[in-house]
């Protein structure tokens, strides 16, 4: 078990009249190699939860354990936790300050005390992981890149620490469709080829359907659902009460079912749905009968 949250409570502006309860008794565990989506309405505590995973925020009650180490441990351990759990904030390109892409990506490993040849290797590796050309881009200013490239530099600037878990807050927000596809593809690759554990906060169910297997639905600081994404999206009515609309594919599947066409409700991608329909149509042809169920 990589990360474990035990009954975590957290509130902003505590001990003032403006106190806002952000997390109310969150318990969950994240295992190595998993890919998890966190969804819910704005203000439901997703980002607060994300910041607990690497110890940026510390629970008021309860415990967060990363590799068995409490995030409240001070000193070297806390730095180690930040290295193991890389957190990519929303609009991460807002944090750029260096004059070159290389320096920007080298910032995190430098803070970890890595210099010289090893540093260059890490930066190069991180850039390759997100599909950026090392020699062509390393000396450019991060501010003259396109939106999609900036986002990838920002992700690379966390990857360069070689974290075990990558937590991303809205990684595709504000990108064009091509930029979105590219980033999702790279994240998928990182997980499949390098065993990176992914935790993705998103409002785009389509994005999550592509790369995530487990989904956590949050509602007013609590976990409302924690399970397989196929299961969640096949229960459109249940998840709607938490402000979540399943992706179009799932909606089409459930519409087909409600009209008597028995497709599997747990299809996630257009390809899966198409295949499901093809198979069902072929079956019908073979049997030469009607598929309307009793």
């Amino acid at each position, binding site marked *: 078990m990589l990360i474990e949250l035990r009954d975590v409570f957290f509130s*902003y502006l505590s001990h003032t009249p403006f106190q806002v309860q952000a997390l109310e008794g969150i318990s969950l565990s994240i295992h190595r190699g998993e890919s998890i989506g966190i969804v819910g309405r704005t203000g439901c505590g997703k980002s607060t939860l994300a*910041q607990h995973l690497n110890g*940026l925020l510390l629970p008021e009650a309860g415990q967060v354990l990363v590799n068995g180490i409490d995030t409240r441990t001070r000193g070297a351990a806390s730095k180690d936790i930040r290295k193991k759990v890389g*957190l990519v904030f929303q609009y991460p390109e807002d*944090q*750029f*300050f260096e004059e070159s892409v290389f320096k920007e990506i080298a*910032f995190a490993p430098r*803070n970890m005390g890595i210099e010289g040849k090893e540093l260059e290797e890490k930066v190069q590796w991180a850039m390759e992981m997100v599909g950026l050309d090392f020699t062509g881009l390393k000396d450019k200013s991060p501010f003259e890149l396109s939106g999609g490239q900036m986002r990838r530099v920002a992700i690379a600037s966390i990857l360069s*620490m070689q974290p075990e878990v990558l937590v991303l807050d809205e990684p595709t927000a504000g990108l064009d469709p091509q930029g979105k596809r590219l980033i999702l593809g790279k994240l998928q690759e990182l997980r499949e080829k390098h065993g990176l554990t992914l935790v993705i906060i998103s409002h785009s169910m389509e994005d999550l359907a592509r790369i995530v297997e487990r989904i956590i639905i949050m509602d007013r600081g609590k976990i409302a659902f924690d399970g397989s994404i196929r299961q969640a999206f096949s229960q459109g009515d249940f998840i709607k009460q938490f402000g979540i609309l399943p992706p179009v594919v799932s909606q089409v599947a459930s519409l087909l079912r409600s009209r008597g066409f028995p497709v599997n409700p747990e299809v996630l991608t257009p390809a899966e749905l198409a295949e499901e329909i093809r198979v069902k149509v072929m079956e019908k042809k073979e049997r030469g009968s009607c598929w309307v169920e009793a």
Partner: protein
Amino acid sequence: MLGRSVVIGQYVPLDSPIHRLDPRVKILFVGITIVGLFLVEQWLAFLALGVFLLVLMFQAHLPFGYVLRSLKPILFLLLFTLVLHLFFTPGHYLLEYGPIRISLEGLERGLFIIVRLCLLIVATALLTLTTSPVELTDGMEYLLNPFKRWGFPAHELAMMMTIAIRFIPTLLQEADRILKAQKARGMDFESGGLLQRARNLIPLLVPLFINSFKRAEDLAIAMESRCYRGGVGRTRLRVLTMRTGDYVFLLFSLGIVVLVKILPFPW
């Protein structure tokens, strides 16, 4: 998220007769009181003005601690003034120890200045604690309006102040976010020597500046698309109107200050 309910400035949003006063009146009141404080020379006069301010404070429903807290930043200044006067005023010496001499006149002068400064701060605190920043800038704009004739940019100044105040919470929120983002990249803001700590500010300040410039551009476009073209011919949402109470208060405080000045206090 952190910045969303940060209280700006010192304003305590309550409902009291003092809160309801026209901001212009309150600004003028502070002006009058400050002039009064610098004109009077007797202890009893100070006492009278002190009591007057205290009464207003209770009228404003302000807890005593709030007003005291506004004195905290100038504590050092107060002590410094006292020490300076104690040691460097010639006269009847109370204590002599080598070159260090404390005179009776020094003690009196020192305490005098301290009381004057304290009352000054309390008077301004009465304004800032009971007037929201928006009201304050509105009032300033009105009061500075006559000087427009000589090219004084009253509206522009007030608009700048309003915008600055408006963006304080935004900036705080942004700083918090960037700080966390850099911490997530292993930045250590807490350790290191003075030079290292100063250098540590770069990853915080550079993004903060860049984002502020971007935001300023956006704001300019947003204002222009709502046809903002400076103060000429602009009407207001909140029109400040002087009520009878406002005039009464203004005359009353003016009267008190004048009275305190001309009354022949024995000491």
